[in-house]
C-alpha cells in the first residue's frame, strides 16, 4: 500500500491550483492538436510538416503526463509510478519499433529502391 500521489481535490486548499493545472493542460492539449492540424493544412514543405506534427505530439504527451497524470521529477513521486511509466515506454517502444522494422522491410521489398537490385534478382 503506497501513499496516493494523485492528490485528491481538497476544497479548502488546493482545489483552485488543481483546477488551474487541469485547465492549463486542457488548453495546451487543444492548442497542440489544432497546431498539428494547422501544420498539416499549411503550405510548409512536407519535411517541416512532419517535424511540426511530431513535435506537437511529443509535447502533448508531456502535457498529459504532467497535468493529467501528475507525474513529475519530484522526490515524492512513488516508485510504482516510475515503474509503470518505464513499462509503458518499453511496450510502446516494442510496438513502434516493431512496426518500423516490419513495415520498412515490407516497403523495401515492395518498391525495390533501385533498378540494379531488380535486374540481378530476376532470373
Amino acid at each position, binding site marked *: *500500500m503506497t501513499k496516493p500521489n494523485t492528490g485528491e481535490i481538497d476544497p479548502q486548499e488546493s482545489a483552485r491550483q488543481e483546477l488551474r493545472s487541469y485547465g492549463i493542460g486542457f488548453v495546451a492539449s487543444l492548442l497542440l492538436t489544432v497546431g498539428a492540424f494547422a501544420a498539416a493544412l499549411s503550405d510548409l514543405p512536407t519535411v517541416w510538416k512532419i517535424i511540426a506534427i511530431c513535435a506537437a505530439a511529443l509535447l502533448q504527451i508531456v502535457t498529459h503526463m504532467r497535468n493529467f497524470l501528475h507525474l513529475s521529477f519530484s522526490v515524492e513521486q512513488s516508485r510504482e509510478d516510475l515503474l509503470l511509466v518505464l513499462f509503458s515506454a518499453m511496450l510502446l517502444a*516494442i*510496438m513502434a519499433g*516493431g*512496426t518500423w522494422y*516490419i*513495415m520498412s*522491410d*515490407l516497403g523495401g*521489398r515492395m518498391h525495390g529502391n533501385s533498378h540494379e537490385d531488380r535486374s540481378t534478382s530476376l532470373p
Partner: protein
Amino acid sequence: MSADISPIFGKLDWSVTPYTDLLREVNSSTIVGAGAASVLVLGAIAAVALLTWMRWWGPLYRNWLTSADAKKIGIMYIALALVMMARGIIEGFVIRTHQSTALGTLTQPESGLVSPDHFAQLFSTHGTIMIFFVAMPLLIGLINFVLPQQLGARDMAFPVLNQVSLGLTAAGAGLVMISLLVGKFGTGGWTMYPPYTGIDYSPGEGVDYWLWAILISGVGSTLTGMNFAVTIFKERAPGMHFMRMPLFCWTSLCVAIMLIYAMPALTVSSGMLALDRYAGSHFFTNEAGGNMMNYANIFWMFGHPEVYILILPAFGVFSEISSTFSGKRLYGYTSLVIASMSIAVISFTVWLHHFFTMGQSAGVNIAFGIATMVIGIPTGVKIYDWMATMWRGRIRVTAPIVYLTGFFLLFVIGGLSGIILANPSIDYQVHNSTFLVAHFHNVIIPGVLYGMLAGIHYWFPKAFGFRLDEDWGRRTALLFVGGFVFTFLPLYVLGLMGLPRRSPTFQNPDFMPWMYIASFGAVLMLCALASLAWTFWTSYRNRLALAVPGGDPWNGSSLEWSTPAPVPEWTFPHIPHVAARDDWGECKRSGDPWKAPQDYVDIEMPANTAHGLLIAATASALGFAMVWHIWWLAALSFLAIPALLAWRGMQVIEPRIVPAGEVEEADRRFRTMMADLAPATRADEETERNRGRPDLSEFAG
C-alpha cells in the same frame, strides 16, 4: 446500395431483413437465414413475455441493471457471454454441416446448405462473437466476480465505470445480434482485412456492423482493464502483499495490463478502417498511398496479446482448482507468477507470426518465430506446476477437474501445433488452411472455454448459494472434450490434405470422411451446450439439496471462501487483515476460522445508478445509426454521451450506507448457522451433507 439516403431512416428500408431474401428466393440458405432471425425475434419476444408475466422488470432494473456491485456486474457479463455462446456454437454447427454438404464438382462448384456469401457471414460472426462477445465477457465477468473477493476488497476501484464497461460490451453484442435481423454482417472474417473490407469491395453495411461493435466494446474492454489494474494496485486488503495474492489475481493483473496496452491498437486499426469507409481517407486502400499491410500489423499488435488475455484467466482458474481439488498447496507459486508475467510481456513481441506469409524477408520472420517459440517456455512451466500440484494429492474428480484433465491432454497438443506453426518455413506450407483453424481452436477451447466453465462451476455456489450438479457438470465437461476431439482433430488432417480455411466449397472427395467426423463432433458440441443448459436448470430445481450456506463447499484456501454463500453485497463484514499467502487456509490451520469480527461499522456501498444503462443505450444508438447512415441519430447520440458524463459529473453522489446493525445481524446469523452445521468430509463433498462447512482436519492446502 441505392444512392438515395432517406434523411430519417438512412439506408434502412424493408428490403434488409432475411425474410425479404426468403420471399425472393426459397432455398436452404435463405431458410437458414430467416430461421436464425426468427429464433432471435421469438427469443426476444419470449424473454419480454417472461419478464412481464413474472413481474420481473422492476427487480431486474433495481437489483441488476442499475447495480454497481462488481459481483452482479460479473454475473451479468457471464450471462451475456453464455447467450452469445449459444449463438456461436450453433453457428459453428451450421458451418460444419455446410462443409459436409459442400462437395462440388468442377462443372458445378457451389453446393451445400448455405450460399457462399451466407457462409462467409457465418464464419465472420462466429469468430467475432466467440472472441469478443463470448471469451472476453466470460473472463471479464469471472474476474469481476472473483477478484475483489480474493483481494479482500469490497468492490472494484471504479464501480460505475465498471457498469459503463459492461454497458458498452453489451451494446457491441447487441449490434452483432441485430445484424441477424436487420441487414447483413461483414464477410471478411473476424479480422476484417482491408482492402477487401474497404468501401470499394464491401460497400454494404456488413463491415460497419463489425466496426462499430468492435469500436464500442473495445472502449469498454480498455476501461475494464484500467479498472482491474487500479483495483489490484490500490484496493488490496491490509497485509495483502503482491506475493500473497492468489494466482488468479496475478493472472488478472496480467490481463489488466494487456487490456490497457493491447485494446487501443484494435481501436486504432478499426478507427482507421472506419475513416477509410466513412470519410474517404486512404489508410488501407490500394491507391493514394494506402498500405493495407499496416492493418494486419496494427490489428495483430492487439491480436496476439488478446490470445493471452483470453488464456491467462483460465490459467488462474486452473491454478486455483488444481490446488483446491487435490487438497494440496499450489506447487511453484513464484514460478507461476514469473511465468504469467513473462507471458504477458513476451506476448507483445510475437504479433508478426500471424502474417508470416505477407512478404517480409526471412530475417524478420525468424526474429518473430524465435520469440514465438520462447513464449512456449513459461506456458510449459505452468503445465508442469499444475501437474506437480496434483501429484500425490487426494484428487476429487469433480467437474472442474474433468475440465482440467481435458485441458492437460488437449492444450498440450494445441500448444505443440503452435510451436510447429511458429516455424516460418512450415507456416508457409499450412498457413490459411484448416490446420491453422484446428490449432487455434485447439488452444482456445481447451484453454479458455474449459477454464472459464471450470471457473463458473467452482465459484457458482459463491454467487448463488447452491452447487451445480456434479454428475451433469461432468457429463457436460466430457461432452465438450469429446466434441472438441471429434470436431477439430480432423481439421488438422484436412489442413494437411490441403483444404483452405473458410472455403465454402471444395472438389476433393477424399475430404468427405473427415468432414463427416467433424460434423459428428459438432453434434457433440451441440449436446454439450444443451447439457450445460440442463446443468444450470436441474441444479436450480434441486437448489435446496445443493445449498451450501456455509460458503466453503470445496475446503478452499483463499479469502472468498470465508464468506457465506450467496455472498452478501458487502462481501466482508470487516475487511480482513491478511497475514499469509492463502490467508483463509492459515486461519483454518490455526483453529476456528469462523470467528466473528470484534466490531461492526457502517459500510459504504456505491449507490445504484442508471448511468451505465444510459451510456449503453446511447452507444447502441450511435453504432446502429452509423451503420445505417442515420446521421441525425448518430449526431444526437454522439453528443448525448459527453452530455451524460458531464451531467453525472455535476451531481453530488452519495454512497449508500449499510448500517452497522444490519451487517452485524446478518453476520451473527451466519456465525450461529455455521456453528450448527455439521462439517462435511471430502467423501461427502458431492452429497447433501455438504452444506458449505468443510471438515477442517482434512485441510492440507
